């Protein structure tokens, strides 16, 4: 059995998808040292072709990508357009990890439905889709804020190494509730008065000397 993880982030090597993949692999390798895992990136001209090759040569493939405009990024869609339908007797396993900046899962369940249908369209075996929100900013968060997230990805990797599939329990933990509770919404509104939810954006706007221009409308008609 060969496993491949294809990273569909347009940020490539700098992506949050890569960080999550590394934690998944740490867990995976702690349980399975024999099986080689191929890692491929869609970003870059040659990498796209390489990813297609890796896809066709692997019996299990996990595609990880960030949510872009409520769906997969254009380069992931382009990759999908090039994937061959199942022809072999044994069906390839295909699973997905969708991560996004939005805290709630509701944003990603629509593309999840697409991914399931797409896998069936090609005649592959659908392993499911792991959804994780609140991922934007993990590269600058203090370790205390990402500890649980990374631990869950390591556990998922361990489970996958032992079972060849995603754990439904860990999947549910990572996904969290579809929407914020009423109490959380009130909390969010109060936090909004202090500017806390936009701290990450303001911090970066200021760092780049662009805070005063943050509301610019360069394409508005005169």
């Amino acid at each position, binding site marked *: 059995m060969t496993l491949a993880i294809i990273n569909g*982030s*347009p*940020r490539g090597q700098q*992506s949050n998808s890569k960080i999550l993949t590394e934690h998944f692999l740490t867990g995976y390798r702690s349980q399975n040292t024999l099986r080689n895992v191929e890692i491929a990136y869609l970003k870059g001209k040659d990498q796209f072709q390489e990813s297609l090759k890796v896809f066709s040569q692997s019996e299990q493939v996990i595609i990880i990508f*960030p949510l*872009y*405009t*409520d*769906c*997969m*990024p*254009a*380069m992931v*869609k*382009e990759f*999908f*357009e090039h*994937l061959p339908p199942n022809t072999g007797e044994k069906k390839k396993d295909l699973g997905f990890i969708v991560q996004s900046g*939005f*805290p*709630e899962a*509701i*944003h990603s369940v*629509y*593309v999840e*439905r*697409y991914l399931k*249908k*797409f896998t069936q*369209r090609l005649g592959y075996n659908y392993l499911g889709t792991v959804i994780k929100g609140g991922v934007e900013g993990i590269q600058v968060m203090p370790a205390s804020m990402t500890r649980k997230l990374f631990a869950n990805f390591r556990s998922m990797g361990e489970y996958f190494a032992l079972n060849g599939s995603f754990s439904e329990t860990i999947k549910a933990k990572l996904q969290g509730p579809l*929407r*914020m509770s009423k109490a959380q*919404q009130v909390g*969010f*509104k109060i936090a*909004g008065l202090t500017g806390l*939810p*936009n701290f990450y*954006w303001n911090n*970066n*706007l200021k*760092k*780049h000397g*662009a805070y005063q*221009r*943050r*509301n*610019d*409308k*360069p*394409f*508005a*008609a005169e």
Partner: protein
Amino acid sequence: MQITILNGDPNPGENDLARFTSFIPEATGANNEIRYFPLADMQIKHCTGCWTCWWKTPGLCIWKDDADAIFEAVINSDLVVFASPVTAGFTSSLLKRIQDRLIVLIHPYIELVQGECHHRKRYDSYPDFALLLNTTPEEETDAEDIEIITDIYKRLAINFHCKLRHVWITDTQKQKEIPHDISYH
């Protein structure tokens, strides 16, 4: 009113999608200003998620390609038509490429919309959306695919502070229904 048509057909030519998009200007009357963008003939790079448009040059993309003309047309339109063949169960990657770049038109700040986190407006007003789909290129395409695509564009519309008003299917829809729909817009 102003209508922007984004034609995401990678193989434009004599087909249903071309027929329908070419029909929109002549059928909707002289009062409408149509901006037509054949994406296959344009230079549109992938969004790289660099956030330049959100925190370095607010509202402006790092790429200087043909997308600027589209941003200007889209934000000043009343209706944007996303036109595409359905391939691999979704709109084309060519169309998705400009769609990903449209985040330049919204603000990074998050606010609650219908109890969910969504991005705040950058501009005062936003165009509504329409989908024009050609389902004939792949015979596997079925009604559920159209439902999935429609639902995802409805989600996109929430982030763009607008509504998905129309879903037109070229092989079942009569061309004359389009101007009728638009005139009731």
